[in-house]
């Protein structure tokens, strides 16, 4: 199998991160629906961390996602 590209790794990291800390719903149907929801959650995350709110997975956003942190979600209902 081909090795996953760096971009794919970053996307997977972001998806996992947003699912865990920003309540990104799992199992979204359709490509468009999925990317809209991810953009919204990226924006929420960027706003929380005082980053430039673009909805894009830029270097600043990925840097914050890669930092060591607490496992409690930042916002939303606590389960």
């Amino acid at each position, binding site marked *: 199998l081909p090795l996953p590209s760096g971009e794919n790794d970053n996307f997977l990291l972001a998806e996992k991160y947003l699912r865990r*800390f920003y309540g990104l719903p799992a199992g979204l149907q359709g490509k468009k629906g999925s990317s809209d929801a991810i953009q919204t959650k990226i924006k929420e995350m960027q706003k*929380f*961390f*005082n*980053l*430039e709110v673009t909805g894009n997975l*830029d*270097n*600043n956003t990925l*840097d*914050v996602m890669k*930092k*060591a*942190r*607490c*496992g*409690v*979600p*930042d*916002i939303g*209902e*606590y389960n």
Partner: protein
Amino acid sequence: HFPRHLKWDKNNITFRILNYTPDLKKSDVDRAIRNALNVWSDVTPLTFKKLHEGIADIMISFGSKEHGDYNPFDGPNGLLAHAYPPGKGIGGDTHFDEDEQWTKDSSAYNLFIVAAHELGHALGMSHSSDPGALMYPVYSYATGFPLSGDDIEGIQALYGPNPDSKKVKPRPIAPNKCDPMLTFDAVTELRGETIVFKDSFYWRLHPQMTEPDQILIQSTWPSLPSKVDAAYENPEKDIVFMFSGIKMWALNGYNLVNGYPKYIHKLGLPKTIRKIDAALHIADKGKTLLFTDEEYWSYDEAAGTMDRGYPRSIEEDFPGMDDEVDAAAFHHGRLYFFHDHIQYEYSYTYRKVIGIQRTNSIFNC
């Protein structure tokens, strides 16, 4: 706070440590947890009693990967710990990832700092978006009392203040880069990045990053004081010098150079100078200018001596400038001086101010 402002409905809370990490001595773990609880009891009427058996309100444990709550850890780094808000059963329970290296200093993850943050959750605090707050979700190391004004306001909104009015000095709130009244402590280049020091934080501006990173100074350099007065880069030596009070430190990249701190008087400054306000290095002349109050000194890097005829008046030699400087930098043949909330762009060739902007224009505010 968590949704519905979850809190304990009593002030006498019990805790129990179920197991211990092998990374530290048992007594060090006990001390870290007790000190972490004291952080919160210092500012509230809460008291914490340790239980050795049975069910406590806050059950503290170390575990790795899936550890019994269907909320698994992820191995080294990443997730460090989690805790549940006040409530029955698992409520208040606090879990640390055993796959992390726990320490009592800054060499790896400091258990006291992580515990103080997690116990904040166990008492009802959610995450803060203030990078200077203990409840900020990203780990950073700092010494001193860990609560900021934001943390104290949050916990006192749930439980009220400490009736004994214990005096605590809260950690300063992280400065806002777009505050129109923002002033700088020090500015320097570091291998193509720009580093701006303000209070106990620094911003890191990288040419390929749209937003500056804001980081606690002691999180990166634990042995440095929490405030930097001046800094400059000598690119030929690949060293950044940082000044705080009468001492100076050297950085190679982000690593502190051995043999420091040294006294600033070793540079040839008189003992009456107790602080350098700003510093900049003019690479093509091999000179470093050190600004103190209303005067400045010139240091010859090659000779390692202070030039004769100094100090000289800032006001006389830099016409158009204020008579004091907070921070200074040399960039592409221009001198940049920062004083209060104004940035002066100064041409060394034409000896005049060629531009005035707000201090934080450097952040595109």
